[in-house]
């Protein structure tokens, strides 16, 4: 028993420390530089295939006609709006509980991406709603809860800008993010809990997707393309945030040095 325990312990410690080393900002910058070209190329290739499938392979809907093609951007944008918020919530836990060095960097970089995808979801939904429902907007539970998600993103981005010190801003934003996470299940289940003009889930269902495979596959490829794009943008945004903090600390160092120089000169002149 003892040798097994020793083996398990000695096996675990280096694995944990190597994970922690990966969270080192300098190591992350190196990893991001190596990963980004691949992620960007993968996102571009998937987007090209997805757009081809969406426009040239997927048939028009028997009721909605060509308008159904809006689904191929509206639904992935909605998924990404939710995904980025869930990611931000996990990062918020990382900031508050584990004080992970990159958690608040990840959280800050995710907010504008999530906000952008939620905005795309809202506007394309409106552009789809007008010809199909006869209205740009209704205050039903799904649409309203997604609008609340968008407002949450804007609030989080505003809070980041309102507090100068990144550490204090990170803790305040983490708390706000975790408060807002209650909206995520509301968005998901709003179409089941309340009577909404928005249709119920058609892909992630217990009894399987209700969309015909000729439309499901283009949708899944577009969703994968959007996900890769979001991951690439997120890694690039995290890299920028690390560099921004370096610039900030170097400017502070320079200001302190100049300040010390002025004081020395003033002392010598006295």
């Amino acid at each position, binding site marked *: 028993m003892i040798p097994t325990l020793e083996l398990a312990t000695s096996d675990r410690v280096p694995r944990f420390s190597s994970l922690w080393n990966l969270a080192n900002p300098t190591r992350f910058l190196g990893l991001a530089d190596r990963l980004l070209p691949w992620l960007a190329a993968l996102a571009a290739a998937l987007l090209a295939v997805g757009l081809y499938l969406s426009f040239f392979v997927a048939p028009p809907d028997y009721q909605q006609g*060509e308008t159904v093609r*809006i689904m191929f951007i509206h639904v992935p944008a909605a998924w990404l709006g939710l995904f980025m918020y869930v990611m931000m919530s996990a990062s918020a836990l990382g900031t508050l509980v584990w004080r992970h060095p990159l958690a608040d960097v990840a959280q800050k970089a995710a907010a504008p991406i999530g906000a*952008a995808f939620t905005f795309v979801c809202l*506007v394309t939904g409106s552009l789809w709603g007008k010809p199909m429902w006869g209205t740009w907007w209704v205050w039903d539970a799904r649409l309203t809860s997604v609008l609340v998600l968008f407002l949450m993103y804007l609030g989080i981005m505003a809070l980041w800008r309102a507090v100068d010190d990144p550490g204090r801003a990170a803790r305040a934003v983490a708390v706000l993010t975790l408060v807002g996470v209650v909206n995520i299940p509301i968005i998901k289940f709003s179409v089941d809990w309340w009577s909404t003009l928005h249709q119920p889930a058609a892909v992630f269902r217990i009894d399987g997707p209700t969309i015909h495979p000729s439309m499901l596959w283009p949708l899944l490829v577009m969703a994968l393309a959007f996900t890769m794009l979001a991951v690439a943008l997120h890694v*690039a*945004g995290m890299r920028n945030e690390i560099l921004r903090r370096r*610039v900030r600390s*170097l*400017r502070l160092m320079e200001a302190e040095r100049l300040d010390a120089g002025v004081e020395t000169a003033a002392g010598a002149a006295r």
Partner: protein
Amino acid sequence: MSDPHAGFIIASYALTALVVGGLVLRVLMDHRALRRALAQLEARGVRRRSARQEATR
């Protein structure tokens, strides 16, 4: 596309392209500006402690 609702479809894809393009452009321009700021600081002799240690090794 001869669909009567073609305008709605084109507007949706154009807006998405604009937003995604804006995100990509913002990240790239931000990166360039930050790299330039770091290079200027280093040129003035302002370096992080770890960078100074690496330079003296």
